[in-house]
């Protein structure tokens, strides 16, 4: 099965509104990174290669606060740890030669993964790639603008943009609750995350919540 343009466009269409929000956060990341002593080029390269907003914000914030490289890397890795199970879930649809698989995997994001999710453990590969590519362009171009041009939009949180992400995930979650097992998994996952937030380092609550899928396995 080749990648179809229609499929890519479907993914990009589903993600365009979010791309605006992601670009705004890209700008603020560019501003934060350059103002905390990162060079312009390293900042932009980091957005292209890491391409994981939460990990990048965490790493740069820790470095800025004098937390040391080890702490910065550890925090970023923990935040990215959820991509282990996420990557596994989409692995069946990422079919290509190894280097291509590796490149395509880089377009896996919380948002592109959620958009491509068809329920029942199935994913639309073209939507994943289309949404991921658009969001990637938004993130990187936002970073470039922030790193070169400075603070043109102010704090995205003033615009409430940080609430856009949970709103999207809630919409996608509710659209795929079908049957008792998904509802139980969602409630458990939410509870696990909430229970761990006060005790665990950022990133761990999300990874641990994925274990909620083990609930009802024997019956499933």
């Amino acid at each position, binding site marked *: 099965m080749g990648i179809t343009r229609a499929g890519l466009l479907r993914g990009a269409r589903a993600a365009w509104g979010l791309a605006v929000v992601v670009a705004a956060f890209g700008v603020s990341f560019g501003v934060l990174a350059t103002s905390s002593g990162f060079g312009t080029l390293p900042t932009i390269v980091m957005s292209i290669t*890491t391409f994981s907003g939460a990990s990048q914000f965490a790493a740069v914030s820790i470095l800025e606060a004098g937390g040391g490289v080890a702490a910065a890397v550890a925090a970023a*890795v923990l935040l990215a740890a959820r991509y282990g199970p996420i990557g596994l879930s*989409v692995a069946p649809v990422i079919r290509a030669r190894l280097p291509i698989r590796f490149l395509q995997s880089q377009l896996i994001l919380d948002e592109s993964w959620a958009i491509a999710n068809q329920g029942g453990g199935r994913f639309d590969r073209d939507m994943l790639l289309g949404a991921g590519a658009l969001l990637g362009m938004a993130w990187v171009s936002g970073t470039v603008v922030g790193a070169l041009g400075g603070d043109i939009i102010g704090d995205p949180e003033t615009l*409430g943009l940080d609430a856009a992400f949970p709103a999207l995930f*809630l*919409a996608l979650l509710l659209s795929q609750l079908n049957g008792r097992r998904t509802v139980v998994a969602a409630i458990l996952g939410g509870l696990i995350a909430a229970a761990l937030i006060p005790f665990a380092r950022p990133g761990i609550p999300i990874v641990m919540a994925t274990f909620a899928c083990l609930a009802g396995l024997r019956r*499933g």
Partner: protein
Amino acid sequence: MLVSISTMALKSAGPVALGGRELPPRLLGLVAAMAPALLAALVVTQTLDGGRELVLDDRLVGVGVAAALIALRVPVIVVVFAAAAATAAVRAV
């Protein structure tokens, strides 16, 4: 650098290792239930996480508005921007 390498490795581990092979049915069932668990965890952490403590702040208003609009079957894109607008409005007060 290290951050980049590790996130790239984490993202590609599953697809590189499995290479498009189908998951065994049991594992597929797990993945099917993992999606709602992970989505719920993302909603919870991005709404309530106040840095090592649970906080009820302006984000909750936005997500509440989102929930109401979703119930009314409003398109997702409208839901997302309404959540941002509601949160911004409460913050501005």
